[in-house]
């Protein structure tokens, strides 16, 4: 009978799930659970980076320490600053295109525990190289961050994390809006669609990403 006390009732589990710490991104209608792996996949100009920066902005402004593992050195701190990310609360790790170093770096960061979010930026890497990444890495991260406050975010051109991720979204671009006329018009807005790969009957979520031309 003593062992039965270790089994949690369904009500208890539902209650735990209800109270799990979530980070919501109202602007896109998304929410992410701490201690899990989340993935944003999509081709060029589909808003992956904008969504992640918006999330990092929310966390770093609250005083949380976040990290960017920049596999191809493509991260632009000016864009991050315009998105509201507090750069002084951000750790930037440049891996110079070395995928193995990027994964090892992410591993060190998740082991440190306590980071609000660790963003593994795989944007710009060819699909062939991404497919060579052993799936065990993702399960290792998932196990490491379980019951920690860390959210591991992965962005790539195509889905890579498989069933290891709790949230996985595929992003696509609907339209690009320009303002002005002639050669000197400016980019105004992207219209995006987000689709969750984990909810088969989930609706597509529309979102828009605006351009900010102000000085950093």
């Amino acid at each position: 009978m003593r062992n039965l006390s270790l089994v949690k009732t369904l009500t208890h589990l539902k209650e735990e799930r209800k109270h799990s710490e979530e980070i919501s991104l109202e602007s896109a209608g998304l929410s992410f659970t701490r201690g899990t792996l989340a993935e944003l996949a999509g081709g060029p100009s589909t808003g992956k980076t904008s969504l992640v920066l918006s999330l990092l902005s929310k966390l770093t402004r609250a005083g949380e320490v976040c990290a960017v593992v920049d596999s191809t050195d493509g991260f632009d701190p000016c864009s991050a600053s315009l998105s509201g990310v507090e750069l002084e609360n951000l750790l930037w790790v440049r891996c110079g295109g070395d995928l193995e170093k990027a994964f090892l770096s992410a591993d060190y960061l998740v082991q440190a525990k306590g980071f609000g979010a660790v963003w593994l930026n795989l944007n710009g890497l060819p699909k062939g190289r991404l497919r060579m990444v052993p799936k065990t890495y993702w399960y290792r991260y998932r196990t490491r961050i379980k019951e920690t406050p860390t959210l591991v975010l992965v962005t790539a051109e195509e889905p890579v994390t498989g069933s290891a991720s709790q949230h996985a979204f595929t992003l696509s671009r609907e339209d690009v809006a320009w303002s002005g006329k002639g050669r000197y018009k400016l980019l105004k807005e992207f219209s995006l669609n987000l689709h969750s790969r984990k909810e088969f009957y989930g609706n597509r979520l529309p979102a828009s990403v605006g351009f900010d031309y102000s000085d950093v």
Partner: protein
Amino acid sequence: MSKLYACIISRNAKNDKAVLLSIVHEFASGIEELEDGVLFDVSGLENLMGDASEIARRIERKLKEHKLSANAAVAAAAETAILLARASSPHRVSTSPSVSSPHVSKGASRPTGDVTSQIDLSDHADKFSQLPLRELDIDPDTLDIFDDLGIRKISDLRRVPVDDLINRYGREFQAVIDTIEQKGGRILTPNIKESSLTWEYDLDFPVEDFEQLIFIVNHGLDKLFSRISYSGFSTEQLDITLGLRKKAARSYEIKTSFPTLERSFWLKLVNLRIALDPPESEIVSVRVISYFTRPRPSQRGLYAVSRPEPEDLLLTVNKLKKLVGEENVGVPVVLDQRVSEPFAVDPEQLPQGREKLEIRSEKLTAAFNYFRPPLPAAVTVADKRLLYIKTPFWKGRVKQYSGMWKKNSHWWNRPWHDREWDIEVEERGVFRLGRNEDEWFLYGEYD
């Protein structure tokens, strides 16, 4: 054992310093000199002298004997003792309400030699509550707001729910709340003349093995840290000099962003630092200099947001530096320069974890992502219009574009050769296209 602190505040602290210290040395060895007096640790004297009231009376008697014009207070928290001693008017004595028999001692006046003593235990509990908020470390704007709301004393502030105060004024306000609740976040730091301690060891036999070296350094740190700890200090910098057999000595400067005497942590840092730049020859001597600093002042509270422990963060950053290179890990900084990539990594900085209180809209803002290296492209141009683009990986029709935008980082000594366009390529995305001399490149994508 509960802590007990005493504080003596004198208007002529500078002139009376020698006498004050002679009095204080009769009560404690851990003494911190303040600008206007002395703070000392009287924990444990209860068994020898009696309760806090009795200790205060003895201090008061000593002050009288030396005809000093000073106020003294005894309390369970250092801040409380200081606040009470500073707030006591001449010839009055104040005490901490949190001490079982709280009490304060009074002052004497040297010019007249007339010493009056008043130990009134009945109002000790109220005395601290009645202190004005201006005595606390609260910024002036917040004080003005409190004043407008009629919150002027510690007792007024205590009535406000702590959660509301933290929500409104941030995590830093927890220090003020700790003070009014007498939780004793302040640590007494004895004044000592030396600023560093040195440990040296000449080896009988040269050491080549890294593990042996760490073993020796471990022994040195053990000795150093026990002496630093005894003085009530901590350290955030170690200088290690390794004497080499056939080469010049190698020096390593190891700093942390926080004081700690955690030996295993320092050993890991030493290990990582020396591994990055190992000595070229056998080691014949080791010298370690440890610089004193005040210990870490307070623990983090329940309201603290997610953040790695400082030790973990520093070790992780050092591991990452070893993996990807020192110049590739750090905090991003935006440069105040008109250059093509106005940002850099600051490898000396660690993330601070500072909270920003201003509210910002969550609107998504387009981000830029660089291609490293820039993607070479062939662009078809007709009638000065961009029509088609071909890269090594894809090709497509240019649907829309804006530009040309001329770009120059050092315009005073370089011609305006660099030109850029924002282009939307059909079924591909939006990119930044650049032309340098006769070559076209895609610098990155808007994402």
